[in-house]
């Protein structure tokens, strides 16, 4: 393909929308939407008879990365394993959300989703899968409401924010976050710039060169554009929650020190005794391996399993290897409990 041809193909792929599996909005509160995915063709049994799995995504970036396209979808993989999947979409905060706190997100919105699902299924507890920052939210929620979560899966979740490889944390330590937030929101563009700055040559240059030199097929171009959309489709961050997250976790590392308080209550991970599966990307530049693996030494559960994949942060969601291995690992682990 010539450069002009590739350029035209990329422009033509602008329309490619991420997200592929049929789903329904089953509950909403403010900008939050709770989706329930319909069973896939491969699995038309009655998944609702089992314990549903609630995926708690991060506030940073959009949750459609979990279901990017048919052959790159963790959610499709989980549906194919017969699981009943719910997903939280936090929405795009605007200026009116600037005072939304971590307590509002975790003990308000997340708790509302859980209550809705439990009421629907007439259950006392559900399974929870927390992704990245959503993993931190899941740990906090479980610590606040241990009776509501039966099994907990964390995926590329930072727990120890002061590991040597954690560049974001080093940068954040001396920043006056209160002045940065200054009563407003933090723009998604600013965060994009920050994330690109972690590996500027690879993320802002090499990946495009690779695309141009690789003679990509139409399908590869479309995948590339969907990932590109996901990377830069970054919601603004509600100022108050952002400030709490950066100060309490990145600067003060309270979670691993059992000093974090949400809704006026202490988050003590030593008190978590439920089964925990921790999925770690050993090549993750955003959440370093050690930052995730630290969960083992602080969680109280005797049923703790860690699975490491030689993948990066994004690769954990959409790489070919992840498609084959991650959903199966989660389903097997859940089935055994």
């Amino acid at each position, binding site marked *: 393909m010539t450069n002009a041809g590739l350029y035209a193909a990329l422009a033509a792929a602008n329309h490619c929308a991420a997200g592929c599996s049929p789903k329904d909005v089953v509950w909403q509160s403010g900008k939050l939407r709770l989706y329930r995915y319909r069973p896939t063709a491969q699995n038309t049994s009655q998944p609702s008879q089992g314990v549903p799995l609630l995926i708690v995504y991060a506030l940073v970036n959009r949750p459609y990365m979990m279901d990017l396209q048919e052959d790159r979808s963790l959610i499709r993989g989980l549906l194919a394993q017969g699981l009943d999947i719910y997903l939280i979409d936090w929405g795009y905060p605007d200026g009116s959300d*600037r*005072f939304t706190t971590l307590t509002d997100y975790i003990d308000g919105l997340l708790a509302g989703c859980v209550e809705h699902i439990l009421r629907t299924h007439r259950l006392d507890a559900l399974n929870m899968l927390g992704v990245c920052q959503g993993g931190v939210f899941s740990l906090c929620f479980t610590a606040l409401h241990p009776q509501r979560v039966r099994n907990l899966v964390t995926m590329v979740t930072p727990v120890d924010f002061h590991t040597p490889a954690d560049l974001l944390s080093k940068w954040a330590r*001396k*920043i006056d976050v209160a002045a*940065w937030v200054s009563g407003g929101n933090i723009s998604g563009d600013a965060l994009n710039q920050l994330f690109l700055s*972690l590996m500027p040559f690879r993320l802002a*240059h090499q990946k495009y060169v690779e695309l141009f030199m690789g003679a990509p097929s139409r399908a590869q171009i479309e995948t590339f554009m969907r990932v590109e959309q996901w990377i830069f489709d970054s919601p603004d961050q509600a100022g108050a929650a952002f400030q709490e997250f950066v100060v309490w976790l990145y600067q003060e590392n309270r979670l691993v020190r059992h000093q974090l308080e949400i809704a006026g209550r202490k988050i003590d991970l030593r008190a978590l005794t439920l089964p925990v599966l921790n999925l770690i990307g050993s090549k993750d530049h955003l959440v370093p391996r050690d930052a995730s693996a630290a969960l083992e030494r602080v969680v109280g559960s005797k049923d703790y399993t860690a699975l490491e994949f030689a993948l990066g942060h994004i690769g954990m969601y959409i790489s070919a290897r992840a498609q084959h291995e991650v959903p199966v690992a989660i389903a097997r682990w859940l089935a055994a409990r």
Partner: protein
Amino acid sequence: MGNDPWSHWKAFAARSEQSQHNPFTPFLDSAESFAAAARKYLEDARHAPAAEEAARTFSHFLREQSMVFFQPPWSADATTGSAPWAAMLDAPALGLTREHQQRWQRTADAARRVGEAQRRLQCLWSDALRDAATAFAARVAASGIAIPSIGAPSVATLRSLYDSWIDCAEEAYAGTAHSDSFCNALADFVNASSQWRREFAASVEQWSKLMDLPTRSELNSLILRLKSAEEQLRAERQQHELRDAASKPRPTPRASRTRRAKRNPKS
């Protein structure tokens, strides 16, 4: 030059006028100094013992040049304390407009600190790129990648060179980005930018009030009031639900009604 505001203003006006006559002066000065430094480097580099020192001196000159390139005009002489701007930053705040003057001074000072931090970051970037280039040259020499003397190199060779360059650049950058000096410069940049934005926003609010336009502070007050009202409403609704749940009739409703009737016969 006197130290009164009028003298400062006249000096500033004269300076502006001068630069209007020849707006290319800074560029010409820069080109001349570059030519002089390059000439010196080429002369010194002819002699083997001095060549290394000459390269270092020239590299240092380029580094300084890159810092000056990113220097905003208002802070050009601020560090020397000789410019009218520098003196105006410290001018005493007196009289009716003292609060506004202080806000402008804080804004200008924050802008100066943004520029300083930006130059430090630029300098660190420059060091990282220099280290990357050195590492890349060493890696290419060690790897024995053959670049044909005649004709274009193959795509595979170019790709290999490119990937090597990216690896070297990321490694050098990571070394810099993890350093205390980079973290400090970045934090100073963000903190100064935050202060500048806050002071600027305060000025905008001041003008908005004069024009009787709604301000961000007023909107924030309303959002906080609304949030507080919503929280109260939610809490009351929860309490109401709890009361409802507690007062739900038992599975044997007839017996329950009977007991209640006995306890409170008037109801």
